[in-house]
């Protein structure tokens, strides 16, 4: 498209919108490296003491470990399920495709508070109770739509004639998939995994209902802390979470560039 100049009013509004989007995230960081006991702005002196508080706290680090374990497990589960489904959705003509799409998307559409209580009741009924396993199942349900969408998009970008060529040259279906399709969509699988991971790592509502005292994920611990008071420790934890998101984004972006270069 030919670029077109926009008027000063539009520029002003856009500048305001970008400020609105950026400032809240940027404000957290100076608060986290603040040396005073309270949230002061501008910060009075720089120190890493709040980060040290977090890193030395067994409660925070324990929660980080719980979150990591839950996110990794549900990512592995979710991406595996999605991988199989995506191949069928993209490569085959199936009946009721619309209905299958709708079913897979459903966890994304239904508000998390509803999913959370529905699963909470269900787990209580079957006496699975609360804890890691319950949260992992809940987060896997959420990971499926995220990864199916990404994997479908990736598979659509791979020329199915490459697979046909392998088949005509004598490879069986599984070999053709493993040797041709899989390497081609590897970056897509990785980015599906990154976004599935992030969706679990940052998820609060389901984890809040399923948490037991020993399985408080990072967001659950932040939630409890925020309800209590807004001390700079939370700013430090938040900064670390922003860092995790940013790293995930950079990784996903690098992967998608590599993917495009290969196409």
């Amino acid at each position, binding site marked *: *498209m030919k670029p077109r100049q926009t008027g000063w009013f539009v520029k002003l509004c856009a500048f305001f919108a970008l400020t609105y*989007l950026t400032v809240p995230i940027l404000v957290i960081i100076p608060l986290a490296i603040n040396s005073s006991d309270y*949230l002061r702005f501008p910060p009075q002196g720089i120190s890493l003491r709040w980060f040290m508080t977090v890193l030395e706290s067994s409660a925070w680090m324990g929660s980080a470990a719980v979150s990591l374990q839950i996110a990794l497990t549900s990512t592995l589960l979710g991406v595996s399920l999605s991988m199989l489904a995506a191949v069928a959705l993209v490569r085959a003509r199936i009946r009721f495709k619309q209905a299958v799409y709708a079913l897979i998307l459903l966890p994304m559409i239904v508000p998390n*508070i509803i999913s959370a209580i529905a699963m909470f009741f*269900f787990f209580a009924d079957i006496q699975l109770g609360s804890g890691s396993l319950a949260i992992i199942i809940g987060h896997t349900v959420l990971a499926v739509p995220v990864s199916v969408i990404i994997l479908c998009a990736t598979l659509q970008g791979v020329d199915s004639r490459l697979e046909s060529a392998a088949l005509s040259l004598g490879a069986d279906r599984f070999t053709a998939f493993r040797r041709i399709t899989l390497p081609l969509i590897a970056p897509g699988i990785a980015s599906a995994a990154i976004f599935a991971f992030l969706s679990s790592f940052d998820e609060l509502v389901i984890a809040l209902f399923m948490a037991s005292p020993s399985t408080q994920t990072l967001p659950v611990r932040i939630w409890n802390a925020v309800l209590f008071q807004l001390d700079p420790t939370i700013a430090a934890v*938040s900064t670390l979470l*922003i860092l995790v998101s940013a790293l995930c*984004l950079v990784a996903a972006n690098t992967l998608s560039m590599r993917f495009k270069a290969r196409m």
Partner: protein
Amino acid sequence: MILSRKAVGPWLLLTPALLFLCIFFVYPLCNMLARSAFDPAPTLRHYTRLINEPAYLRVLLTTFEISLSVTLSALVIGYPLAYFLSQLKLRTANFLMVLVIVPYFTSVLVRTYAWMVLLGTEGILNQVLLGLGLVTRPLAIMFSRTSVVIGMTYILLPYMVLALYSVMRGIDTHLLHAAESLGAGRIRAFWRVFVPLSMPGVAAGGLLVAILSIGFFITPALMGNQQDSMISMLIEAQVETYFDWGFASALASILLACTLLLFLAYDRMVGLNRLFEAKQ
């Protein structure tokens, strides 16, 4: 075709995911719907309780009002930004887009916390305003409907901008140049040519933000107050505080119906397929 044309192959691949979702998601949802209407005999008492109690109707009304305010605010703030970005060179636009994408992928809880820190009575905004002598007493923005709308609009703005931008990028600027060369002023060309063409984006963004805001929990729970409770907060309270699962299920069923209705509109106007195809 890597999959056999026989109908069995693909379904075999779909089974694990569909089975998992049916057992751990669809069944619990159906169970919840049933819980709202059976006790164990069929009953409508949870629903009649909702209708007969003005306080609960108020919660429903508040939910719709906040949802609408958030959708409109996001549109008003997002439209000029998306328009601005769509008229830039792709490279510059992609660079500025980072400022939209990073908040989009940052934890909702962290972003809500940021607003609590900004707007609180002893928050940064008040510290700055008091420091500059612009106000003599701290502004009481926090824990009001205003703070909820500010926070939720902030969280959902990226969805709006991305939906608008993807449509606006596709609008041929030659049409605007043509309108101008035929005598329309810049403003007239914008309103008569660009705005109508951007309507699919407005529909997509607006419905998406409405769908997401109607069931939002984290931000209203942390930044709102009891008088302006949204339905999600009432559901949580019924489960965690009052242990009334039947009533919570009825509330959740109503919320679910509203969400699905909006989503049906989204499917009609925008198309569900767009989520799967032509992305990335």
